[in-house]
């Protein structure tokens, strides 16, 4: 449960996050993602742009610099979860014909929490609280002041043992 080691932000996540706010105005060439785009999800079916005939814009177009983008690669790509000092984030980009048309960052309830929570959702046992008298060495309770200590069960135990 120690602090997670900060992972290196891949170019995919980096580029998408830096440019995220301006994405709709400035499509980013998919080539910028290089080969680090990890797992494609729902390839060829999500958010296909309704912009027929649109060409990649700018000098560094996808078609020019992309390795496999001659055919205008499309799909949704999810980056690795990246942990920074403020938590975990995972970026998903949608690419249509070699352009990023959409990017979103998810802040998953995993990372640090997952280290604690584990894969399954564990359960607690439920019952009604019972009051017991028991032979005990010490009592755990909400912090008492020096004053309320005098009236506590712990004080009685200490007096008996002193």
């Amino acid at each position, binding site marked *: 449960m120690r602090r997670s080691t900060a992972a290196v932000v891949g170019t995919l996540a980096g580029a998408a996050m830096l440019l995220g706010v301006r994405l709709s105005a400035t499509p980013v060439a998919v080539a910028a993602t290089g080969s680090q785009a990890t797992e494609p999800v729902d390839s060829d079916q999500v958010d296909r742009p309704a912009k027929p005939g649109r060409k990649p814009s700018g000098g560094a177009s996808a078609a020019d610099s992309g390795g496999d983008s001659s055919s205008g690669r499309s799909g949704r790509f999810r980056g690795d979860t990246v942990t920074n000092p403020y938590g975990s984030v995972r970026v998903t980009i949608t690419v249509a014909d070699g352009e990023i048309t959409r990017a979103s960052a998810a802040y998953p309830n995993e990372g640090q929490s997952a280290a604690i929570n584990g894969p399954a959702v*564990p359960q607690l046992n439920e019952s009604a609280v019972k*009051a017991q008298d028991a032979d005990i*060495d010490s009592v755990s309770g909400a912090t008492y002041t020096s004053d309320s200590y005098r009236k506590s069960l*712990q004080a009685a135990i200490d007096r008996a043992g002193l």
Partner: protein
Amino acid sequence: MRHVEQVMGTAVSIELADDLPTATLASLVDHTVAWLHEVDRRFSTYKDDSEVNRMQRGELTVADCSADLRQVLITCSDLWRETEGYFDVHATGRIDPSGYVKGWSVEVASRWLAANGSTNHCINAGGDIRTRGGPAPGWEWRIGVRHPWKADKVAWVISGHDLAVATSGVYERGEHVIDPVRGRPATDLRSVTVVGPDLGRADAYATAAMAMGDAGLRWLAGLDPAGYSSATVASDGKAFTSRRLPVAALAA
């Protein structure tokens, strides 16, 4: 040997169960007590010239504070993340690591005692407990969890050799734990007890779960596989225990 010391605004009960000469035990108790007072002097928010207050006033930076304080602050920021912001040393608008320092200081004391000959002891600092070994050869320590409505009863008995047991709770009208995320008193839960290897962390987890309220139940369930089990009483009297809670079988 038993000793009760008034320090850190509460009573600390120290029981050394080792078969050692009285003078040795007395010396171990003295050292332990001296350490607790030192922690109080250096970390209290009530003492004007404590390290914590000097840092608050900007007279001390993280770079030139003691290694102890730096480590405490680092752990507190880890705990802030682990508890999704519910354990917050800045919740009161100033730096106040007391919610971790008490348990941490007892943890350090227990480690020091073990390294210096006392491997069987029980330290209870205002209701937060660290045990080692047992009260007698072959016996486990038995720790009662105070019943939230009946001060002279216990709701559970936890047993084991090396345990940290911390409880956060409200027992009387007017007491409250503030939920630092929503900025209001947390009223769903009555008491949360966390049992695990480290008292500072157990204390912080119990405080955080208390502040989370009902949502804290699910969070506590998730804490169990990570080594910190729990026993919770909700305001409606329902009781919740996690799977690995070392509950002692009740004597009939």
